[in-house]
């Protein structure tokens, strides 16, 4: 028996931060602390949550503690909810616990009715709960007979597994309460168990626990509340402390007994694939082979057949060995469904290296043609889940998910969750509220964090002290605030949210693995993230919504509508004009290559094929930037530098990337073919190289790597060290070549549409909003594309951006883009649809009065439409606004009246161009006018001797100039050594402005708040990708502020 004597050996009621807002420590921290104090068992019993289970079991294994999993579940008894502690006593008990938690999450009250608890008692140990529990509360209310009746009921359902919980948090009367509970237990013949309720690891954490409790309860720290902690005694106690507070030997012995009898290993050894649809007369393996061989004959011909067959046989053998045939068939079912329903979908990621995936139609890229490495995806030694990521047109992803739920059954399909961890802005809001800071102050503080600090974890808040002092000064609350934030663990979880696409399809009901709950948006999700799901033996398919696929799909439909041509986007012709466009760097709006740095790289790379494009996509990433790969690659590609290899044996691996390390596949190949590792070892090594955390340090592998290279290819120690250093410099970079190829195909398709159907493509990217640029910048870019943007019009605008053939300024009809009514803020898609339907049924609106009578919309909607210019063709905006106000004062909209009684509007001055521009921005965040914000301050800029950006395109390099532009983009990537990159816009011309660290420090507030920047700068690059280096900075007030992209 583990709990010999009176010393407590097991903690049975421990909360981590997965008791969202009611715990401060990670499961790992708690386990470490428990191990330090000599505990043998620790039961994690978070509030209606088992999200910490996988981390708990993994940490427990690492620290020599045995993990138990349970949860604190509120149970409704006679109208009141009391928390009970349930501990799973077996794998089946865990499944029962998951069902109970699922039940609670499905109820508004977030609790479990008593009868449900009694019916779900299988293999669960029940503790009666701490201070808020039924025993303590009913005793305090002297409802002893009710309590006895309840305990007898529970005893019937949990024979030998019901324990009266003793706790002592050094609150007033805790000692006497424990004595009374013990006496009650003796009188009823029930056992007691010592189970202090632990809410944090160390006593000092009680401040954070108190603040989080205040945030959860909606009170400030100044306000007393019965459920706030009164002291720091709910830290993980030493066994001696517990012994002193609860000196009852049988209670400590029972804790050990519960722990020993409830211990089981939660994490399985194998993955369990979902059930695929397979014809009755065959097996999944045979069916998979059949499908692949049939497709192979269709897709390959000539000499390629033999190569493809050999590769297929090799892959199928691996799939068979891992028992994953059904997994592939399920992935194929999803893409089959998409194809049948005209939904653009394509597999990406490492799956693109699999010929099985290619032949099943899951991926679009031929892995043989592009020489993609299957072992990156799957090998027989692989113990982790293979990644099959399927990008789906985001506009139609909901359809696919609904079909998946229908096909696989509601109880075997759910999304994995994302554990949303705190960053400074969120922590400032939550904890600031608890500290009693009013919303305005919190918002000012959040704003003051700016791009410098908002990405920080709360634990690094001290680095942002300058922002805290800027807003809070030297008030004591600033110190308390920084102290609280500093006490938060790095990965403190705030809440769970659905993953962007990870769908788990299981063989058994998912409650066997995890509770299910609904997100605020109604999405069913597991309490497991993707890594947890894998550790629990589940296989996930990533069904990701990709806006660019929606944009391509939408553009294709517009082309069909206007020109009657149906484009096969997977098989577009190779077109010099597309490569010319990309080589020029005119890539705004194109997939993956539209950022300023990608535009710049486009000009240097001058890609003329998909391979080069895939390299370009992979090149501008943190890994290559950080490891210094970018410049050698570009110089070698341009022939400015000789291509060399660290060792001759690396030439076959790195020759296509000019001798530099670019892809994860290269790391794998080097590990196998240079360092002599097995594929399993190499994959483990590659995973570490791809990771970011301190756990992923590859330094311990150095010796084995070097020795392996010396042995395997006869490399010298220096050569092997050099290769190892190169691989190490690659750390943290996770781009697979197969993934880059899949993206390159989409990038090319976007460029092709941009060249051949610019209006249709513009309408599509304005509707679906892929990428980083605001509608305002895209609208300005449309001027460079030669695509007119038509004004809003209640008689022409619809629900999406559409292409019309229009005569602009009396010329020949050209394709132009008409913005939709729902681009007006405050006008929903549904409202836009109503306006459209009424127009189709009863003809165009003849006046504001006519629309007001026909459309039952709110006054604010009419006003927004008028202010956006939707009634401009029917009269002046001011007059229309006057009439809407006057009509709204006489009768409700949507009612026909013979005589409205509203007099004509008085004579009102027309809107000036600037007023119209500002109104446009206020209502739609962009203007359909052919002007730009800078045009309104052009005279001031002239007085300041500023040169317009357009003229700088032809300036000589290194020229010093003064110029200005509207700030439409801000970046300060962590890899840039303190440099910031702003994008200035002047009409359809943009310039990248490089801001050195000293200027950034001197102008932090100006750079945070300025709309128009005036800068003295040196010209670094000219042409389409104009680049300037700032030498000094000042600002100018702008008529509008643009919401550009921000990236810190």
């Amino acid at each position: 028996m583990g709990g010999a004597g009176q010393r407590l050996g097991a903690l049975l009621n421990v909360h981590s931060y997965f008791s969202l807002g009611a715990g401060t420590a990670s499961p790992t921290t708690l386990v470490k602390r428990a191990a330090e104090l000599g505990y043998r068992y620790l039961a994690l019993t978070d509030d209606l949550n088992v999200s910490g289970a996988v981390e708990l079991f993994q940490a427990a294994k690492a620290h020599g503690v045995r993990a138990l999993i349970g949860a604190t579940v509120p149970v409704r008894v006679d109208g009141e909810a009391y928390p009970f502690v349930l501990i799973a006593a077996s794998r089946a008990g865990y499944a029962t616990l998951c069902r109970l938690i699922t039940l609670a999450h499905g109820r508004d009250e977030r609790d479990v009715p008593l009868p449900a608890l009694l019916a779900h008692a299988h293999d669960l140990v029940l503790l009666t709960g701490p201070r808020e529990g039924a025993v303590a509360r009913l005793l305090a209310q002297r409802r002893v007979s009710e309590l006895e009746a309840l305990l007898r009921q529970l005893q019937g359902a949990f024979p030998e597994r019901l324990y009266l919980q003793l706790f002592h948090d050094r609150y007033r009367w805790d000692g006497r309460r424990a004595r009374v509970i013990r006496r009650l237990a003796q009188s009823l013949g029930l056992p007691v168990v010592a189970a202090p309720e632990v809410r944090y690891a160390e006593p000092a954490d009680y401040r954070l626990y108190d603040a989080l409790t205040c945030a959860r309860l909606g009170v400030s720290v100044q306000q007393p509340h019965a459920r706030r902690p009164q002291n720091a005694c709910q830290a993980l106690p030493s066994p001696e402390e517990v012994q002193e507070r609860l000196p009852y030997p049988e209670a400590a012995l029972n804790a050990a007994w519960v722990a020993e009898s409830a211990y089981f290993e939660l994490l399985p050894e194998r993955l369990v694939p979902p059930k695929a649809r397979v014809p009755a007369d065959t097996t999944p393996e045979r069916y998979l082979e059949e499908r692949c061989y049939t497709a192979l004959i269709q897709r390959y011909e000539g000499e390629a057949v033999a190569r493809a067959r050999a590769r297929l046989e090799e892959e199928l053998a691996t799939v068979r060995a891992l028992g994953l045939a059904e997994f592939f068939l399920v992935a194929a079912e999803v893409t089959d469904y998409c194809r049948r329903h005209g939904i653009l979908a394509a597999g990406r990621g490492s799956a693109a290296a699999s010929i099985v995936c290619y032949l099943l139609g899951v991926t679009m890229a031929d892995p043989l043609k592009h020489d993609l490495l299957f072992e990156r995806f799957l090998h027989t030694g692989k113990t982790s889940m293979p990644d099959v990521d399927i990008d789906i047109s985001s506009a139609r992803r909901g359809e696919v998910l609904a079909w998946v739920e229908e096909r696989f059954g509601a109880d075997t399909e759910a999304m994995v969750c994302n554990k949303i961890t705190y960053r400074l802005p969120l922590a400032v809001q939550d904890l600031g509220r608890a500290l009693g800071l009013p919303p305005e102050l919190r918002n000012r503080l959040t704003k003051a964090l700016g791009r410098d600090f908002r990405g920080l974890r709360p634990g690094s808040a001290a680095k942002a002290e300058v922002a805290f002092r800027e807003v809070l000064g030297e008030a004591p609350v600033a110190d308390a605030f920084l102290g609280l934030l500093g006490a938060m663990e790095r990965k403190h979880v705030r809440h769970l949210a659905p993953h962007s696409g990870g769908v788990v399809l299981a063989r058994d009901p998912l409650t066997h693995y995890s509770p299910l709950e609904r997100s605020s948006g109604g999405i069913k999700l597991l309490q497991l993230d993707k890594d947890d799901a894998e550790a629990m033996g589940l296989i996930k398919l990533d069904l990701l919504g990709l806006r660019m696929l929606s944009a391509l799909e939408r553009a294709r439909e517009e082309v069909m509508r206007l020109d009657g041509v149906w484009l096969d986007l997977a098989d577009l012709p190779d077109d010099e004009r597309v490569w010319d466009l990309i080589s020029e760097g005119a890539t705004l709006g194109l997939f993956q290559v539209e950022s300023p740095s990608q535009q710049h790289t486009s000009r240097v790379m001058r890609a003329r094929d998909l391979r080069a494009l895939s390299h370009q996509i992979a090149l501008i990433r943190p890994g290559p930037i950080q490891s210094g790969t970018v410049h050698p690659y570009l110089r070698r590609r341009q022939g400015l530098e000789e291509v060399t290899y660290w060792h001759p044996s690396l030439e076959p691996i790195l020759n296509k990337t000019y001798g530099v390390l670019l892809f994860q596949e290269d790391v794998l190949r080097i590990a196998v073919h240079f360092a002599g590792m097995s594929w399993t070892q190499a994959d483990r090594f590659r995973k570490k190289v791809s990771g970011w955390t301190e756990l992923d340090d590859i330094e311990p592998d150095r010796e084995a790597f070097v020795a392996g290279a010396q042995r395997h290819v006869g490399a010298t120690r220096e050569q092997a060290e050099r290769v190892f250093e190169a691989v190490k410099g690659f750390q943290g970079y996770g781009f697979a070549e197969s993934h880059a190829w899949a993206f390159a195909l989409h990038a090319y398709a976007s460029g092709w549409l941009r060249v051949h159907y610019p209006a249709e493509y513009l309408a599509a990217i304005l509707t679906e909003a892929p990428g980083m640029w605001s509608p305002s910048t895209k609208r300005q870019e449309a001027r460079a594309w030669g695509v007119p943007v038509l004004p809003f019009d209640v008689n022409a605008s619809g629900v999406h951006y559409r292409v019309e053939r229009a005569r602009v300024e009396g010329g020949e009809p050209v394709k132009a883009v008409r913005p939709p009514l729902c681009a007006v803020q405050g006008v929903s898609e549904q409202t836009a649809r109503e306006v459209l339907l009424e127009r189709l049924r009863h003809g165009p609106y003849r006046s504001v009065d006519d629309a007001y009578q026909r459309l039952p919309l709110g006054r604010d909607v009419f006003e927004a439409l008028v202010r956006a210019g939707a009634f401009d063709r029917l009269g002046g905006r001011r007059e229309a606004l006057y009439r809407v106000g006057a009509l709204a004062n006489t009768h409700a909209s949507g009612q026909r009246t013979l005589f409205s009684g509203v007099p004509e509007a008085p004579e009102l001055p027309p809107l000036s161009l600037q007023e119209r521009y500002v109104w446009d921005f206020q209502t739609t965040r962009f203007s359909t006018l052919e002007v730009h914000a800078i045009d309104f301050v052009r005279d001031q800029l002239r007085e300041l001797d500023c040169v317009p950006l357009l003229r700088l395109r032809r300036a000589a390099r290194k020229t010093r100039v003064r110029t200005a532009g509207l700030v439409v983009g801000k970046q300060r990537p962590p890899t840039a050594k303190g440099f910031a990159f702003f994008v200035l816009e002047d009409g359809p011309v943009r310039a990248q402005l490089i801001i050195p660290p000293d200027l950034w420090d001197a102008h932090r507030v100006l750079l945070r708040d300025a709309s128009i920047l005036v800068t003295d700068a040196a010209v670094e690059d000219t042409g389409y990708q104009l680049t300037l280096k700032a030498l000094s900075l000042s600002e100018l007030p702008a008529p509008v502020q643009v919401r550009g992209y921000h990236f810190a």
Partner: protein
Amino acid sequence: MRLLMIEARVVLADEGRAPVAVGWGAPDGPLTPVSAHPPRPGRPPRAAGAPRPPSPTRKVVSVLDSWRYDGRWWEAVELHRDYYLLELDGGTQLELFNEGGAWWAARASD
């Protein structure tokens, strides 16, 4: 129980934990509450009138309860108090607390 908030003299058991004897305020006459709020750390409570002679030390018959209070962590000075509810010889119940090494008699029954 009547409010006291008076500095107390406490004799601790050999192990230095629980009080075994305690004395506070005046031995005779009514006890005058000084403040409805506990004294802040480092600041002695204001006594009403002239200083009184100390009461004789009384023996602790039993420790009825003990508890801990931590709070006001968001202010410049935090509170940390260890409370005891004592039964004294003669039947008086006294609520006593220790803060920063100093002892205070908080409340007493008549």
